[in-house]
């Protein structure tokens, strides 16, 4: 456990990233459920959980959550089917770098099942795990100034969906009309960590 602020601690987890992320998500859910006094934010990420709070937050009580947890998360996990149009500017390049014709790549992609590992970068931006290693691509050398809202994109081990038009360096595969962040909706965020996501062409 490492200090990240006067009253903020990072809990980190070992193993390959998807497994470490699952451990981080379980720990985050358990910390939230424990209702420890003084907790303000619990942020699971790739292989860590950041817990930040007030002077009331006792770090000794956080240590217990670094141990791997086997019990299932208390929150009921949802499955989302996301309809996508394969109109991304990098679609053909993604497919060829993965060694497949575009149609074949999309067919495989639509059969994969993804898990929301964590959210970050901008409100509602989800990092999804579940890409086979052969589909892990580096980010683009030069980020785009504006990625279209709803873009479904690949970078490293992740698939991400841009909730709004922002700068971005990921490889663009397609787009969806679904709103990932909508302040008029309840809840305002479509995804939560742990949710399952499938793409439908």
């Amino acid at each position, binding site marked *: 456990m490492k200090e990240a602020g006067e009253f903020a601690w990072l809990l980190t987890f070992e193993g390959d990233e998807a497994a470490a992320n699952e451990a981080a998500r379980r720990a985050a859910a358990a910390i939230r459920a424990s209702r420890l006094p003084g907790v303000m934010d619990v942020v699971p990420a790739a292989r*860590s959980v950041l817990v930040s709070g007030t002077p009331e937050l006792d770090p000794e009580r956080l240590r217990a959550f670094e141990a791997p947890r086997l019990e299932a998360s208390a929150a009921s996990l949802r499955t989302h089917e996301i309809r996508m149009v394969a109109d991304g500017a990098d679609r053909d390049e993604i497919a060829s770098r993965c060694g497949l014709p575009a149609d074949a790549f999309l067919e495989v992609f639509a059969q994969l099942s993804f898990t929301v590992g964590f959210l970050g970068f901008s*409100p509602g931006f989800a990092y999804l795990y579940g890409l086979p290693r052969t589909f892990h691509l580096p980010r683009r050398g030069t980020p785009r100034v504006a990625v279209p809202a709803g873009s479904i994109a690949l970078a490293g081990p992740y698939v991400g969906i841009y909730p709004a038009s922002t700068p971005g360096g990921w490889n663009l595969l397609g787009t969806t009309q679904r709103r990932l962040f909508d*302040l008029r909706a309840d809840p305002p*965020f479509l995804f939560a960590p742990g949710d399952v996501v499938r793409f439908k062409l």
Partner: protein
Amino acid sequence: MTPPRGLLVLEPGLLSTVQDRGRHGWAAFGVPAAGALDEEALRLANRLVGNDEGLAALEITLVGPVLRASGTLDVAVVGGSFGPAPGRVLRLEDGDVVSFAAARGAARAIVAASGGIDVPVVLGSRSTCLSARFGGFQGRRLWRGDFLAVPLPPSPSSQPLVDDLVELVEPGAGDILLRAFAGPDEGEFDAAQQAAFWGSPWRILPESNRMGLRLGGPSLGLQETAARASEGTTPGTVQVTADGHPIVLLAERPTTGGYPKLAVVAATDLGLLARTPPGRSVRFERISVTEARSLLAARDVRLRSYPGGRA
């Protein structure tokens, strides 16, 4: 019919936004905390006009706004001199014009008004999230012609003057000293890199914003960042980019980031950093996290000792 009480924006200034103590509890969904960069100034300015410390106020930047009062109300400016009466309450009568357009060496200040600035609460806060365009006044910086509703007339508990706010007016001469403690990734930096960080003056670069302050100085050397796992971020964290340049993360930072974190600026000194304009230099003085906690506790005692509104 009486016109509504409030402040009409005659000139918006460079970057004037509505901020409170930030939007907490939504970071797991990628929502930046936002909130006033200078929390101490926010709390004090609110106290001066008799408000609860955390009410929404204006954060003004480099060149402040020109405002015209509608109805009678109090405003107080804390955190930097932008013209009238730093650290004091100004009573405005209907039609009075107040200008914060004269910057005198401070980057930012807070202008609080009696009863706060009345904007809708979004995800638990009135703070403006500039990057995602929501919260505050219509999710954006102020424009000419905007009208800010101010709910209350002057409070009987407003304070006409607090004498010892001098240290909150603007940064002094010379390098600005910021206390900081070891960051979670300090071990990834070698002795020479650490010595360069703690020993060098760092210039605040003009491309700084509410997400982070970019610091100019010696490159700390290339960092291996491509394969780093993203982690949750905290305010004051000094992260080092792939090309070796430090960035101090501020209130509107993204909730996760992948750069190594060399140090964390003490929360008590983030207000001073917010008040320090681009072009000025800062130095970091190493303290322990325990000392940083004590400084914060002492500051809270001091803030509560000021008369005025409630915590």
